[in-house]
């Protein structure tokens, strides 16, 4: 920070440290910053090394940090997560990549019965600061098992933190906060948003990481756009959809507030409930099937805590109770602009 004053030509840019990045680029930059910050940070997974990951999120890191820190693993998801547990027990901070959401299930046992519970059953004597990066959700025209929304399966398991960034800035910040959090984190990267661009301030998170309990910040929701008539709650890939909904609705005279959850466990219910009390109408939008999902959880909490403020029932817009359909159907399966706008009309009709 201090020597930026001596870099005369780019001094202004250096001080602001704001760069335009894609979300994939922001995660890459965040991983790099974390690896520079702490030599105990390791990347592990299939193809994360020389190839740079199938989405190139780890591009260049193998070249710069070497095969000891960017480790190409055997093709075995349970093995990847299970060995990361053992490495974390010796003080490492493994960041493992599961190549696609639908391939996390072979590791489900290690994540839910071991990673999530070790701190509890060791009375806190074993911390497992493992991050599991998962390119998740759909909308990229992929084939079977490459477009799953798995968040509720893990949110139901105590001991795990689950978060999903919706912007390059959050991607850059949250990946680092996840890595330095003492708890295991499932870090869900909305793969349809990997190529979205945005401004990233690369300095701000550093200051926060230097502060105690800075990692708690990954558990907070943000109001992405204020509004007065309807609250649309979204996270990860559906935040952009929600913002588009707000734009269109504004043209029709309806003011939509968009809340970006950022974190699924813990759930920042307080922010959602405050918004619900302001607007009296809430729609939760996620790609995962609505049955037994995050939207159901939020609807129940809003019902418990903001019942007398509601002007309409809490609505959910999400996937159907079916396997993720073939990609030619995904536009209708996913909570697209029309389906969310329809829900806006329905809550406004109350």
């Amino acid at each position: 920070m201090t020597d930026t004053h001596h870099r005369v030509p780019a001094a202004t840019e250096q001080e602001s440290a704001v760069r335009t990045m894609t979300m994939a680029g922001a995660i890459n930059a965040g991983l790099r910053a974390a690896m520079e910050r702490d030599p105990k940070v390791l990347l592990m997974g299939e193809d994360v090394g020389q190839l740079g990951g199938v989405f190139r999120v780890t591009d260049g890191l193998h070249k710069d940090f070497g095969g000891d820190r960017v480790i190409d693993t055997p093709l075995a998801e349970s093995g990847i997560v299970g060995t990361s547990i053992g490495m974390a027990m010796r003080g490492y901070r493994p960041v493992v990549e599961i190549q696609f959401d639908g391939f996390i299930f072979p590791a489900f046992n290690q994540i839910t019965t071991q990673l999530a519970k070790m701190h509890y059953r060791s009375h806190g004597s074993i911390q497992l600061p493992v991050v599991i990066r998962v390119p998740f959700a759909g909308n990229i025209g992929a084939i079977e098992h490459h477009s799953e929304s798995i968040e509720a399966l893990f949110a139901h398991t105590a001991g795990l933190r689950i978060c999903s960034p919706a912007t390059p800035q959050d991607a850059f910040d949250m990946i680092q906060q996840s890595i330095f959090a003492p708890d295991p984190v499932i870090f869900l990267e909305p793969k349809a948003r990997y190529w979205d661009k945005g401004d990233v301030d690369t300095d701000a998170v550093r200051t926060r990481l230097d502060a105690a309990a800075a990692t708690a910040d990954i558990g907070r929701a943000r109001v992405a756009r204020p509004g007065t008539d309807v609250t649309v709650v979204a996270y990860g890939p559906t935040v952009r959809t929600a913002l588009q909904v707000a734009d269109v609705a504004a043209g029709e005279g309806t003011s939509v507030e968009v809340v970006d959850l950022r974190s699924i466990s813990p759930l920042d219910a307080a922010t959602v409930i405050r918004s619900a009390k302001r607007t009296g109408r809430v729609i939760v939008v996620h790609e995962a099937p609505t049955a037994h999902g995050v939207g159901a959880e939020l609807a129940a909490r809003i019902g418990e805590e903001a019942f007398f403020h509601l002007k309409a029932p809490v609505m959910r817009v999400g996937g159907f109770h079916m396997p993720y359909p073939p990609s030619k159907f995904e536009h209708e399966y996913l909570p697209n602009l029309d389906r969310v706008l329809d829900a806006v009309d329905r809550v406004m009709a109350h």
Partner: protein
Amino acid sequence: MGPLSDDGLVQLLDVDGTRVADPDWEPYASHLTPEALRVFWRLMTLTRTFDAEATSLQRQGELGLWVSCLGQEGAQIGSGTAIREPDYVFPSYREHGVALTRNVDLPQMLTLFRGLEHGSWDPAKHSFHLYTLVIGAHTLHATGYAIAMDKDGLVGSGSPENDGAVICYFGDGATSQGDVNESFVFAAVNNAPLVFFVQNNQFAISEPTTRQSRVTLAQRADGFGIPRVRVDGNDVIAVHAVTQWALRHARSGQGPVLIEAFTYRMAAHTTSDDATRYRTRAEEEKWRQRDPIDRLEKHLQQLGQLPDEFRTAVEAEAKALGKRTRETVKAWERPPLLSMFDHVYAEPHAQVEAERAWFDRYQQSFIDEGSHA
């Protein structure tokens, strides 16, 4: 050679207690003085006494469940005594004898089985990880831990006295698990300093090893490029020798080893199991003749190295351990209820905190009502 075959086992002490000459393995047992063998006998005896006491406590309703290691004391004490600092142990859930060699307080282990907590000891203090009930899951933790030891420069450092390795225990049934096979892959390609120690006690609950494998469990290692050795698991001296070799091999940076200790679980799988449904008294009797403690006892007597005063002292120690086990278990009280919310996360988590606060208020409401009465 079938999976139940006892051909090709390393043996240094036969069932009559007579030493067997084996020039390959003798160097790894030559340091065992009569005094060291008496220590083995003592540790096996204490393990057995504790095990019997825990079984009784379960029968009296004091424990929810007990997993006996009766008959496997040779495999456990033989291997456990080959472990040293800075080695690290990943047990399954039946390694009470190994725990004893790691100075874990045996009565204290029973909090898990009493239903008071999920983990009873500080793993780092004893270099002995918590028991893992999901079969084979810990083999991957052991592999990652071993890879990390290597990264930390604790392996093949050039000064063998400082080198370390990991030893991981699991049973015959576990070898069918995906995680165990994945751990073989990860350990092999990373040349991890890891000794896989299979206690083949011949049953996965009721299923014999023939329902798990067509080859000996040791042979499983071949496909992964892992050296293996098959040992008479009821011969504490041979187990000690092969484990010495395997740990030295791993510590020196030569990679993983698989040991199959061929033994027999004399008790049922757990206190919930009925072993009479799937095996015969004749078979049990055959294995009783191969008892690891009796065998070493005969040997020590042949040597004239089991003096009455030593035997009496160990018997007294065992009796005291049994008494202390009973008294410890019965004296336990449930910790404060709110403590069940502790340690779910390392940092506060909104859901846990909210539920803890709610439950506290709920509990408090009964106390308040009581005070009005």
